[in-house]
């Protein structure tokens, strides 16, 4: 499975990066690919490419604030949650994404 994600939090400091890191680690453990764009105090980093989004089986937006470019994910199976949801249970988030991706592909 291939996933893409955007992480963003109010201060753009800790939770953004914790969520990004949590998603990457959990995806790796599950054998999935995960690209994470962070929208933080330093702006947008690791910006998702059109190809990455197009190839993704599902999208997760781990965001506590409005983000830039949400229209890029129109039509993709998208899970919108808070950064704390990732921090609390990244494994569960990946499981849910896997299910969404499987349904979309089936």
């Amino acid at each position: 499975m291939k996933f893409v994600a955007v992480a963003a939090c109010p201060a753009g400091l800790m939770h953004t990066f914790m969520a990004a890191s949590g998603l990457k680690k959990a995806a790796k453990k599950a054998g999935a690919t995960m690209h994470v764009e962070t929208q933080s105090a330093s702006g947008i980093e690791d910006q998702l490419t059109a190809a990455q989004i197009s190839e993704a089986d599902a999208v997760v937006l781990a965001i506590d604030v409005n983000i830039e470019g949400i229209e890029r994910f129109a039509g993709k199976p998208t899970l919108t949650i808070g950064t704390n949801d990732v921090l609390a249970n990244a494994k569960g988030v990946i499981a849910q994404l896997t299910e969404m991706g499987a349904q979309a592909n089936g």
Partner: protein
Amino acid sequence: MTPLLTPNNVQLGLTATSMAAVIDQLVRHEQTEAVSAPDEAIAAVLAREADVPTGFVQGIAIPHAKTAAVQHPAIVIGRLAQPVAWTTLDGSAVDTVIMILTPAAVADTHLKLLAMIAGQLADEAVITALKAAQTPAEIIQVLEEDE
């Protein structure tokens, strides 16, 4: 640039008995010299807690704020004598607090450090090691260590 993660910035055996008191003590810690307006900095951290609580898991909380009340970024770490109530993701009371204060404009170098610490905390093994660390030097080492 003054290093942000040093054993001097770790306070052990804090006796505060509430979240607000912990934040107050850490902001007023003598090593937090970057803070020009402690009252404002404390208010900013508490406002962030009210907005989205920063209690994490296993008794760890990471209160933080980006505020004009500080001149330079500061990381202050506190270990409590007794856990205090805090809104955490797993319902645990908090005994280890990693507080981060940053000025309104943050340099990229500091953001990278924060991102590094954040990434470390997303690792269960790091959490376990952090809980087990007993001295300021050990605590700093755990946060700095890369996988």
